[in-house]
C-alpha cells in the first residue's frame, strides 16, 4: 500500500488552518447518529472522548483501569510545553516546532510538528479554563520554567505533578459527558481486538476484567489512545499495566507500526536494587540543573565503593570523573537525555559504575548545597529528595544520589497520517500510541503536549472528515466479523489457560526484558540484534509451550491478563529488533554502535534513512513488510547535533 | 421532599444540626454551671434555692427550656440517625483496626460518651428537675421570709451527694462530658465551616479549656458535698474556700 501522509498543500504555517476548512463537516443534527469508540482514557483518550461527546457524537470510552483517572499520563512530572512566549524570551510557534524537529533528530514529519506547536497555546487556555491549578507568579499570571535544556522558558507546570493535574482536567471534562449520557464509560475493560468490516474499523472486542466476559462493541470509528510500549523492556518507568496489546492487535488487523525501535531512555532514574524489582522510578530531569554527574576515576576505586569500603562522599575530588562536564564542556550535565544515558552506560561498561550492582552513576548535590545551603536545595527539590530517600533509604543531602538510565517513552507507534488515521480506515491513533510527532527522540515536557493536542484539538476535526463520508446508518455487532473476532479472543484466552507449563508470565516478561535491554537498549549492534532476534523467537516458542497460569477466564484473573500482554510483547520485541537492525544509522534514541562520529556521537544517515519505517504485518511468524514514508524537510536545515 | 428536609436529612445537614444543637447546649452548660455555683455559697442553700425558684417560674426561662428540650432531642436523635448511617456504611469490619495511630480516642467515641451522658441526664432529671418541677420537695422553712416558702432543692442536692455511688456516677458522667466537649466544641465549628488558619487553633484551645472547666466545675459539686458537708448541708471548716470565692463572684 502506498503510504499517503495526507499532508495538506501550502505553506507550513497555513496547512492546519487550510485543512480545517477543507475537511468535511458532519451536520450538527447528524452527529448524534454516529458512534465513536475511544480506547484508553489518558490525556489523549480522555480529551478525545470528552471533546467528541461535546460535539454531539455518541462516545463509548474504554479503560482497563477501575477509573479513567488512573491512566499513566498521571505520572508525568515535569510540565507541558506551549509556545505562549509569556516570558518575552523569544519563543514562538516556529521555535517550538524547530526545537521539536531538531530534538527528534530529523525523523518527524514537519507538518504534524508544526500543528502541534500551533495548538500548544490552545491547550494551556483550555486547561486553565477547566480549573487546572498551574503554577503562578505572585501577580497571578502563569509561571513558566525552562526544561530539558530548552533555551526558552515555555514549560507550564503544576509542581511536580503536571501530568496528574492535566489528566484530572481531561477526566473532569470526560466525567461531565458521562453524566450527560454522551459518553458511555466502560471501566475495567481491556481491548483485545479491533473488528474490521469491509476494510473499515467498525468496533472492538473487550474482556470485562471483573467477570471475564468477552464483549463486542460497534461504532462508526475507533480511536486508540492506548499509550506506549516501554514495558517490552519489563523494567521501565511506565506503569505496570502499560502494554502494547491494543496497538498490536490493531497492527495485526492492518495498521502499520512505525519506527518501533525509537525508544527513549531517561538518564535520571533510581537504579535497580535487585531481581525482585518490578518497575523503575524516574527522578525529574530538573535535578540535572544543579546536580553533578560523576563516577570514580579508576576501576579500583569503583570496586572499593561497590564493596562499601569507602563512602562516595569521602572520595577525594581528584579521584572523581565528572564525565559529562569533561566530555561536553559547553552543555555539561545538561546534555540531551540520550547523550547523558549513553555516557552513563559507557562508564558502567568500563567497570566504573557504583552501587552494589555497579550499574549506577552518582548525581551529586554537595556543591550546590555548599553554595546555596541545604534549605535552598530542599525548597527546589525537597519532594524529589524525599521520594529518593523513601525508595533507597539513602539521604541525598549527605550522600550523592545513584542514578541510572531507564526506558521511559516510546516514540514509535502506530503509523498515522496527518489526520491521525492509521492505515485501517476509521481507525485512529492518538498520543503515545501513535508515532507521529517526536521523531527519534522526544523533548522533555512534550508528551503531555502531544497527548492533549491530539485529543482536544486534532481528532475532533479530522474524525469528522471521515464520518462525514460515512453514511449515518446505525451500526451493530451483527456482522460475522464481530463473531469471528470474539471467537479469536476466546480461543486465545483458552489457549493461554490450557498450556499449564512451568513458567509464569512474569518470568517470561523478565527474560524478554533482559534481551531487549541488552541488545536493543541504549546501544545496539547488528550482531547483537541478530542474536536478540533468535533469542526472542526461542522465548516466544517456549512461552506458548511452558506458560503457567491458574484460574479461569470467567473471573478477575490478573495472571491471565498479564500473560496476554506478555504474549504481544514477545511479538513486538522481534519487530523492534528488526527495525533497529534495518536502520543502519544512529539517530535520537536509536544508537547503533557501528554508526557514530569519531567523538562517539550519533551519526545520522539522512541520504538513506530520512524516512518513517512503517511495518506491515504479514501473518504469524512471517517477516513483516517494510513500507517507507519519505520525510521531506522544507523549513529546517538538517544538521548534526553537537553538545561539545 | 422539600429542599429544607433534603438539606437536613443529608449527611452534612444532620451534622449541621448536631453542631448547632451541640453549641447551643454548650451555652446551656455555661448558664447551668454558673447558676449551680450558688451551691458553694456558705448560706445553707438560700441563694441556690432562690435561683432554682427563679429558673422554675420565670416565663422567659420556661420558654427557653423548651428550646433546651428540642436541643437535646435533636442532638440525640441526629446522633442516633448518623450512627445508624455510619454503621451501614461499613457492614464488614476489619480484622485489624488501629485507629489509635491516626486519631484521638474521644473523637471516635462520641456516641459512647454521649450515651453515658444521656443515662446520667435521665437520672439527673429525675432526681432534681422532676422533683423540683412536679413536687416532692419540702419547703425551706425557717425564719427567713425571703426563702422560707421556697422548695428546698439544696437539701435534695445534699442528700443525693452523700450517696457514694451517686457521686461516682456524677463524676464519671462529668469525665464523659469533658471528653465529649474536648472533641465536640471544635468539631462544632468545623462542621459549620467556621475554619480559618488564624482562628481555628484558638477555637481548638478554647474548646479544650471549656471542656476542662465545665466538667471539672460540675464534678466539683458532688465531690464537695460528699467530702465537706454534713447531711444537713453544713459546710465543714476544712472545705476549700476557692469554690466559695468563685461562687461569690456571681
Amino acid at each position, binding site marked *: 500500500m502506498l503510504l499517503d501522509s495526507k499532508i495538506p498543500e501550502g505553506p507550513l504555517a497555513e496547512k492546519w488552518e487550510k485543512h480545517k476548512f477543507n475537511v468535511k463537516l458532519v451536520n450538527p443534527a447528524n452527529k448524534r447518529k454516529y458512534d465513536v469508540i475511544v480506547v484508553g482514557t489518558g490525556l489523549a483518550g480522555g480529551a478525545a472522548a470528552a471533546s467528541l461527546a*461535546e460535539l454531539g457524537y455518541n462516545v463509548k470510552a474504554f479503560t482497563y*483501569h477501575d*477509573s479513567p483517572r*488512573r491512566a*499513566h499520563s498521571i*505520572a508525568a512530572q515535569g510540565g507541558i510545553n506551549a509556545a505562549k512566549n509569556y516570558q518575552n524570551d523569544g519563543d514562538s510557534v516556529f521555535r517550538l516546532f524547530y526545537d521539536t524537529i531538531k530534538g527528534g533528530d530529523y525523523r518527524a514529519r514537519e507538518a504534524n510538528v508544526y500543528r502541534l506547536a500551533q495548538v500548544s497555546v490552545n491547550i*494551556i*487556555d483550555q486547561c*486553565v479554563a477547566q*480549573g487546572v*491549578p498551574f503554577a*503562578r507568579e505572585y501577580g*497571578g499570571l502563569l509561571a513558566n520554567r525552562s526544561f530539558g535544556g530548552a533555551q526558552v522558558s515555555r514549560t507550564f507546570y*503544576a509542581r511536580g*505533578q503536571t501530568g*496528574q493535574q492535566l489528566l484530572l482536567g481531561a*477526566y473532569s471534562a470526560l466525567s*461531565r459527558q*458521562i453524566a450527560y449520557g454522551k459518553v458511555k*464509560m466502560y471501566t475495567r475493560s481491556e481491548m483485545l481486538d479491533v473488528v474490521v468490516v469491509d476494510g473499515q474499523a467498525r468496533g472492538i472486542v473487550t474482556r470485562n476484567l*471483573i467477570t471475564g466476559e468477552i464483549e463486542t462493541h460497534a461504532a462508526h470509528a475507533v480511536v486508540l489512545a492506548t499509550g506506549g510500549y516501554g514495558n517490552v523492556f519489563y523494567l521501565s518507568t511506565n506503569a*505496570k*499495566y502499560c502494554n502494547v496489546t491494543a496497538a498490536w492487535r490493531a497492527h495485526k488487523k492492518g495498521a502499520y507500526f512505525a519506527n518501533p525501535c525509537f525508544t527513549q531512555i531517561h538518564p535520571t532514574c533510581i537504579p535497580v*536494587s*535487585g531481581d*525482585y524489582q*518490578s*518497575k523503575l522510578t*524516574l527522578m525529574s530531569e530538573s535535578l540535572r540543573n544543579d546536580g553533578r554527574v560523576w563516577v570514580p576515576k579508576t576501576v579500583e576505586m569503583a570496586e572499593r565503593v561497590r564493596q562499601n569500603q569507602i563512602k562516595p562522599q569521602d572520595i577525594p575530588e581528584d579521584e572523581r570523573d565528572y564525565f559529562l562536564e569533561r566530555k561536553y564542556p559547553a552543555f555539561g550535565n545538561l546534555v540531551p537525555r540520550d547523550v547523558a544515558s549513553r555516557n552513563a552506560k559507557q562508564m558502567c561498561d568500563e567497570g566504573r559504575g557504583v552501587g*552494589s550492582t555497579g550499574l549506577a552513576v552518582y548525581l551529586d548535590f554537595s556543591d550546590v548545597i555548599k553554595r546555596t545551603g541545604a534549605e535552598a536545595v530542599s525548597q527546589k527539590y525537597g519532594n524529589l529528595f524525599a*521520594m529518593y530517600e523513601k*525508595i*533507597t533509604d539513602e539521604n541525598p543531602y549527605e550522600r550523592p544520589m*545513584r542514578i541510572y538510565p531507564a526506558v521511559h517513552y516510546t516514540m514509535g507507534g502506530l503509523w498515522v497520517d496527518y489526520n491521525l488515521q492509521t492505515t485501517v480506515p476509521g481507525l485512529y491513533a492518538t498520543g503515545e500510541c501513535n508515532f507521529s510527532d517526536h521523531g527519534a527522540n522526544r523533548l522533555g515536557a512534550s508528551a503531555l503536549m502531544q497527548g492533549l493536542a491530539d485529543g*482536544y*484539538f486534532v481528532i475532533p476535526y479530522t474524525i469528522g472528515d471521515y464520518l462525514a463520508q460515512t453514511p449515518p446508518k446505525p451500526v451493530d455487532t451483527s456482522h460475522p466479523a464481530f463473531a469471528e473476532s470474539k471467537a479469536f479472543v476466546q480461543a486465545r484466552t483458552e489457549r493461554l489457560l490450557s498450556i499449564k507449563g512451568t513458567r*509464569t508470565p*512474569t518470568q517470561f516478561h523478565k527474560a524478554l526484558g533482559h534481551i531487549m535491554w541488552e541488545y536493543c537498549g541504549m546501544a545496539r549492534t547488528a550482531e547483537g540484534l541478530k542474536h536478540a532476534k533468535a533469542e526472542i523467537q526461542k522465548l516466544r516458542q517456549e512461552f506458548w509451550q511452558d506458560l503457567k497460569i*491458574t484460574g479461569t477466564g470467567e473471573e478477575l484473573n490478573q495472571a491471565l491478563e498479564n500473560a496476554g500482554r506478555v504474549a504481544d510483547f514477545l511479538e513486538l520485541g522481534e519487530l523492534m529488533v528488526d527495525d533497529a537492525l534495518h536502520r543502519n544509522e544512529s539517530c535520537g534514541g536509536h544508537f547503533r554502535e557501528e554508526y557514530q562520529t569519531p567523538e562517539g556521537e550519533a551519526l545520522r544517515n539522512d541520504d538513506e534513512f530520512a524516512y518513517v519505517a512503517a511495518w506491515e504485518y504479514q501473518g504469524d511468524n512471517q517477516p513483516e513488510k517494510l513500507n517507507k514514508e519519505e520525510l521531506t524537510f522544507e523549513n529546517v536545515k538538517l544538521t548534526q547535533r553537537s553538545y561539545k | 421532599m422539600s*429542599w429544607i428536609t433534603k438539606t437536613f436529612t*443529608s*449527611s*452534612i445537614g444532620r*451534622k449541621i444540626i448536631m453542631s448547632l444543637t451541640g453549641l447551643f447546649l454548650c451555652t446551656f452548660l455555661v448558664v447551668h454551671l454558673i447558676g449551680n455555683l450558688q451551691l458553694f455559697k456558705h448560706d445553707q442553700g438560700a441563694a441556690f434555692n432562690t435561683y432554682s425558684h427563679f429558673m422554675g417560674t420565670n416565663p422567659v426561662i420556661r420558654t427557653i427550656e423548651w428550646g433546651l428540650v428540642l436541643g437535646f432531642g435533636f442532638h440525640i436523635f441526629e446522633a442516633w440517625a448518623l450512627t445508624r*448511617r*455510619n454503621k*451501614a*456504611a*461499613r457492614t464488614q469490619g476489619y*480484622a*485489624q*483496626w488501629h*485507629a489509635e495511630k*491516626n*486519631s*484521638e480516642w474521644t473523637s471516635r467515641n462520641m456516641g459512647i460518651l454521649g450515651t453515658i451522658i444521656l443515662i446520667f441526664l435521665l437520672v439527673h432529671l429525675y432526681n432534681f428537675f422532676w422533683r423540683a418541677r412536679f413536687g416532692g420537695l419540702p419547703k425551706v422553712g425557717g425564719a427567713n421570709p425571703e426563702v422560707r416558702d421556697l422548695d428546698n432543692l439544696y437539701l435534695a442536692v445534699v442528700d443525693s451527694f452523700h450517696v457514694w455511688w451517686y457521686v461516682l456516677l456524677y463524676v464519671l458522667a462529668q469525665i464523659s462530658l469533658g471528653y465529649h466537649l474536648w472533641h465536640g466544641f471544635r468539631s462544632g465549628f*468545623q462542621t459549620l*465551616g467556621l*475554619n480559618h488558619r488564624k482562628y*481555628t487553633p484558638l477555637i481548638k484551645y478554647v474548646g479544650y479549656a471549656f471542656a476542662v472547666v465545665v466538667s471539672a466545675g460540675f464534678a466539683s459539686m458532688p465531690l464537695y458535698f460528699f467530702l465537706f458537708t454534713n447531711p444537713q448541708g453544713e459546710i465543714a471548716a476544712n472545705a476549700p474556700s476557692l469554690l466559695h470565692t468563685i461562687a461569690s463572684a456571681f
Partner: protein
Amino acid sequence: MAGSNPNAKPMNLTLNVWRQPNRTAPGKIVEYHVKDISPDMSFLEMLDVLNEDLLHAGQDPVAFDHDCREGICGSCDLFINGRSHGPEKGTTTCQLHMRKFSDGDTITIEPWRASAFPVNKDLSVDRSAFDRIIQAGGYVSVNTGGAPDGNEIPIPKEISDRAFEAATCISCGACVAACKNASAMLFVSAKVSQLALLPQGQPERKTRVENMVAQMDKEGFGACSNIGSCAAECPVGISLENIAILNREFLAAKATSNNLA
C-alpha cells in the same frame, strides 16, 4: 543489595491475607509465608513474590490493584496492619518499603472496607462511587475550544497554591478506609474546595456542592464526625480544612441557591 544498608538481612514474614473469590462469595483471612524478603523491596514487590510462589504452586494468586507504583495513580489500596496504606505516614502502599517491617513479623492485609466499595476479589475493591461523585459535578463546564487566554484570569498565587494542594488528591480511598464512619468527605471536599477557591469554579459553585454531596450520600458513605483519621492517613496530605470548606459551601449553597428541589 544495592541499598545503602548493607547489613539489612532478608526477612521471613507471615502474611494474613483476605481472600474472597468474587463479589458475592464469602471471604476469609488466609495465612501465607514468604521467605527471603529484601528490606529494599516495596510492599507490592513483596506481594509479587507471594504471587509468583502461589502461581508456581498452582494456586490462585492474590488479586490487588496497582499500576504506577510511584504513588500517584491512586490504584493501590491495601489496609495493612489495621491502617490505610500501612504504617508509614504520607505514603501509598506502592511506596511503602519492607524495611519498615522486621524479620518474623506477621502482617495482616485487608481490602478497603466500606459498603460503597464492594470487594471485586481478594484485595481489589470497586471505587467507582468516587467517579460517580465527580460526575455529579466535580468539573467546570467548559467545552473544548473557545477558552479565553490562560492569562486572562489572574489568580493570586496563594489561592492557586491552595487549590493545587486540594487538587493533589489521588482518589485512592484511604480516607474512606481509615474513617470509622467510612465517610468520603475528605475526597469530596478536596474537589469542592479546589473549584470553590478558583475563579473558574464560581459559575457552578452552588449546584456543584449540592449535587456532589447528594451523590456522596446516595453512594452510602458515612457522615463525617471530624475524627481526622482521613487526613492523618491520606498519602498526599489533603487537609481537614477542606472539609470545613465543604461544610461551609454546602450550607451557603443550600441557604442561597435557587434550587427548590
